């Protein structure tokens, strides 16, 4: 019976969905930033696999189906960029230059620090796109031989830092313009930061969400030139 249970793809599928829904429920109840559905779901899945001694391959049979949907999810990010084309046109130069500067800074500083700390190649490749939104970061990481999970973890650290500290960063680093605040938040902490940017103001929220798509695209192009 157990054999049939573990060899079925429905095991991984059910586990992913159930833990994710539980994570979503906990976030709604508590409203804490760290009660993140992804974090909770991943922690619970790993706990179940490790505690019950279930091999990763059994989980992957079902989880792979969900993983395949990452492509369509990434493709649909195009809708967000498309819907913002008007405001993007209006602020074309600041958005383009700001996101370009941010993406270059992010990738070069990560690359330099990874070399300085002697970080493994597979980890460095995963960390490079850490300022991008998760689906794009996973795409970039995997196409350079990086580990998707580490990419997702770094993206989350950057996102949580920005979501918690964006108003402080703006004050300490002397960014007063609302357009600049929004773009800076989106460039360093993508979707998680955008939730905070929306609290800071309407312009900040809109600019932050524009920065997600633009920085993502710029980072993909930049990553082509960076070999690590």
């Amino acid at each position, binding site marked *: 019976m157990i054999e049939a249970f573990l060899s079925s793809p429905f095991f991984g599928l059910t586990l*992913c*969905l159930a*833990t*994710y829904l539980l994570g979503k429920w906990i976030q709604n109840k508590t409203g804490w930033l760290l009660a993140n559905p*992804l974090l909770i*779901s*991943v922690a619970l*899945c790993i706990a179940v696999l490790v505690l019950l001694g279930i091999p*990763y391959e059994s989980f*992957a049979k079902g*989880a*792979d189906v*969900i*993983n395949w*949907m*990452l*492509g*369509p*999810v990434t*493709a649909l*990010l*195009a*809708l967000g*960029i*498309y819907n913002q*084309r008007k405001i993007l046109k209006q602020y074309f130069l600041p958005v383009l*230059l700001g996101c370009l500067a*941010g993406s270059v800074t992010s990738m070069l*500083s*990560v690359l330099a*620090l*990874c070399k300085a*700390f002697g*970080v*493994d190649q*597979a980890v460095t490749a995963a*960390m490079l796109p850490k*300022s991008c939104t*998760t*689906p*794009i970061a*996973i*795409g970039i990481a995997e196409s*350079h031989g990086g*580990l998707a*999970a580490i990419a997702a*973890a*770094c993206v989350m*650290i*950057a996102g949580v*830092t920005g979501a918690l500290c964006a108003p402080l*960063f703006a004050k300490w680093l002397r*960014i007063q*313009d609302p357009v*600049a605040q929004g773009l*800076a938040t989106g*460039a*360093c902490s993508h979707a998680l930061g955008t939730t905070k940017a929306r609290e800071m103001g309407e312009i900040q929220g809109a600019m932050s969400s524009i920065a997600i798509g633009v920085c993502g695209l710029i980072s*993909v192009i930049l990553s*082509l030139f960076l070999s690590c």
Partner: protein
Amino acid sequence: MPVAAQLCVIFAVCLVSEGLSALLPFSFPASVLAMVVLLLLLLCKALKPRQLQQTANFLLGNMPLFFVPACVGIIRYTDVLFQNFWAVVLISLLTTPLVFFVTGHVVQLTLKWVRRKEEAQSHD
């Protein structure tokens, strides 16, 4: 568009992008290429955002779910993770305000320059 048709369109875009990605001489992630292809289809009015609405609402509304399998995959690489753990955390933390700083100031300088130019033009 019925949901089955929406899925068909999105899967087809992803399929074409996988092909294109394989043709390219450099390693460009197929998923991001699919985003570019879909954006082009929207811009040239071959598709309307409304036509993909239900699928987009479901997939984008539950985005974190689709990262779960890749993240759970870390249990196969615990040795790599533990070896680099502190470096990874430290680098991620340190570079975030740096990116904020550079982006923010570049945008402020650009805005200043653009506004000055606009003012100069309006004085002419």
